[in-house]
């Protein structure tokens, strides 16, 4: 197995690890950096459960080679809450009842953060389009839409 060392700016810290050249950023986050918040649900970029923000772009970490993330800024769901305090998007998901099994939740929260940062007052159509890459099997999305609108009203306006 060929390996190489990569260095990330991970949630504001410089972190390095030895990764297999064929392994995804998702595997590296979960298995090498001990950040299991990003989830492995489809491994094909279909469900968004592994969403992270890399150099300001929302990406599916299962579709990014760990080696290709070398030197990049990576923000995961663990990097959103500061000093144990919930990020406003996280709080909105809790309050709106948008969490059931929760497996899709970290990816949705990262995707919502990316949306609201770019578009602080999205219309419902814009929210639906922005979150179309995140599959939730439990909620039917109604409470998720509610959470996004709550977060938008509460914080980004």
């Amino acid at each position, binding site marked *: 197995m060929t390996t190489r060392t990569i260095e990330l700016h991970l949630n504001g810290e410089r972190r390095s690890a030895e990764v297999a050249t064929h392994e995804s950023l998702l595997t590296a986050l979960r298995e090498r950096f001990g950040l299991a918040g990003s989830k492995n*649900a489809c491994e*094909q970029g*279909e469900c968004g459960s592994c969403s992270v923000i890399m150099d300001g772009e929302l990406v599916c970490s299962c579709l990014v080679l760990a080696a290709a993330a070398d030197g990049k800024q990576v923000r995961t769901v663990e990097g959103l809450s500061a000093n144990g305090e919930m990020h406003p998007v996280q709080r909105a998901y809790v309050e709106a009842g948008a969490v059931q099994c929760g497996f899709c939740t970290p990816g949705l929260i990262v995707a919502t953060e990316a949306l609201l940062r770019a578009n602080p007052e999205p219309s419902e*159509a814009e929210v639906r389009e922005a979150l179309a890459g995140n599959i939730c099997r439990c*909620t039917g999305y*109604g409470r998720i839409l509610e959470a996004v609108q709550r977060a938008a009203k509460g914080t980004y306006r």
Partner: protein
Amino acid sequence: MSRSAPRLTLAPPRPGARVKVRGIVGESAERPDAVAKVKGEFAYASDLREEGMLAGHTLRSPHAYARIRSIDVTRAERMPGVRAVMTAKDLPTRALFGLMKRDQPVLAADVVRYVGEPVALVAADDMDQAKAAARAIAVEYEPLRPVTDPVAALQKGAPKLHPQGNVIESVRVAYGDLGASAEVVVSGEYEVGMQDQAALGPEAGLAIPRVDGGVTLHIATQWLHEDLSQIAPCLGLPEEKVRLVLSGVGGAFGAREDLSLQIHCCLLALRTKRPVRMAYGREESFYGHVHRHPARMWYEHGATASGRLVYVRATLVLDGGAYASSSGAVIANAACFAAGPYRVPNALIEGVVAYTNGPPNGAMRGFGAVQSCFAYEAQMDRLAAACGIGPVAIRVLNGLREGDPIITGQAMEGSAPVAEIVRRCAELPASSPEIPSDPLLLPGGTGNLTHGEGVARATGYAAGMKNVCYSHGFDDFATARVRLERDETGAIARVHTASAEVGQGVVTVMLQVARTELGIERVQLETPDTTVGSAGSSSASRQTWMSGGAVQAACREVLAELRERAMSAGRTVPEDPRELLADPSWAGLLDEPLERTATYRHRDTDPRDKEAGQSNGHVAFLFAAHRATVDVDLDTGLVRVVQVATAQDVGRAINPLAVVGQIEGGIAQGLGLAVMEEIQLKDGQVRNASFTDYLLPTILDMPPVVADVVEHPHPDAPYGAKGVGEPPTISSTPAIVAAIRAATGKPLNRVPVRPDDIVFGTEARSGWKIVPGQDPAKAVRA
């Protein structure tokens, strides 16, 4: 545990005038796991780690049906990092496993019966090494011709896939005059495709060997104790040497009722004396769990000219796949509820579930009630049209009322507001009547296929019913241990059950019940495991009733004991024992912690009558009605669901926000079955084992839901709460298809509806001629 345990009379919560706490029954209390989940800190099974753990992997059959001639593991055993390779000959026992029938080998020995059947196991230092070693195992197969049609499997001369033949279970329901005739008759053949539960969290577990030769398994499951009773015999261990601990569960929907990797993971840990983690990827998950039974159904309904039902006759054939799982109970449900939530004086139902060489099928949300609801609701619409009345009118006219029997002879007791929910559903606000011009809001969405031209809008209705809790004489119980103690802040209760939180929110329900009963806010839930009694399964919409009932009972026993302690203190004891916990002057009562374990049972149900299906087999029933509005692009056959309205009878909403979450989520799965979700098989081979090819509803597919939560408290249920999880998935599918039929005029006799079915009016045909009510073993080729 004795069956003669007293049945508690569980009244609604007592008015606690002097004890006020937040987060009690009836409030939308916050989930106790929500904060950890939004922060990414909640540990699901696939997140678990242990020092020195190995990775386990499964080698599976590429054939639907084949003899195994030989297995050679010598090359695999020499691969780097490999710690163990196991085949059938390495198993400690020959014990079989299975949810209701033990018919599955832990590893295939001489024959494989479906694509994906486990053949060998590998444990290695990492997953890449384990997979490489599995590829290096040489298995020589002699392929046999697979049986893939369940009707063919039932005919005389079909190859026997199991020693006792291909019938897993047959169910006959005969009620009233079997030869009844009617003025208006409609008949049809219907088909339901194979749906996947598609829980987002793939199967995973971590097995840790113990110094005493036993093993502890951290697992995502729906029922710890049932798993234990299947696992231990296959490990050759007594149950005391196997402990199961619930890990975080990433959704279930029935798929985790059956074992997947549980035994395999323990075997590898015991063999290597190292912790072993197994975690399926998405493709393996499609092979590694049971699916919703595909169904073929032949129906005939007879009614008076004014639309009153006279009889229903039906033959139902479900494809059980290679192993039985819960097929017997699924066909029993499909047959019991084959006439739907309507008064039907005469009925004859023949239901059979057959072994084939397809993937094993088992539990999925709705459990048999989904399949027959699709057929009988299509029939109700045809009957309404033939009688010249509307879809709402025919359902209101025939809807069950309290005291009416269903076709099993069981009368509706407690609450059965069918006409009411249909009416209330019909009265809910409709979507705006205009077809939009923005392509994003039309069928095809970003594909930009239409600006509204060629688009037809229509509305359809459906209603459905299902049992809650376990039925047919099953000893259905749930256990809860409640410990009351005091620390420097005050009284705190610790609630320990084995109830599996799979996303549905039973943890919140249990907290709310404990807070309500004890009158204190500080309640902590212990990790569910097998050191406390069984809670039964998180299925059949039953945990609110059952684990809610067990926690309530344990709390009341704890309070009774607390009152006993107070009585011996020589002071005036308040009427409401909860005041003892609120009043600091009584703090000394908890110098010693107080603990009680209670077992809750619902009332007994009768066993299923094998001759005619007549029995009081169910404890209570759930009802929902759905109205769907769709836009259909008639040129491309694409559908956009515009709105779903629903009225659902829940008994009582313990947590209104969670109830809405269950309703919306269940409708999304019903929408999936209506227009997109199907595991496609060719010669027993799954052709779409990925989320790229198995389509799931996204946020763009899911319309707004208007929900009317109807509360008729059930007198037997704790707080009157009946359960909520399954009905949203039962009648939403036929309501959406009814709307598409109304928009297109096409017959659409199968789900999921495909674009071809809409554009060309293609009807699904099984190729078998069956008279509704006939034994399908005597089918003739059409």
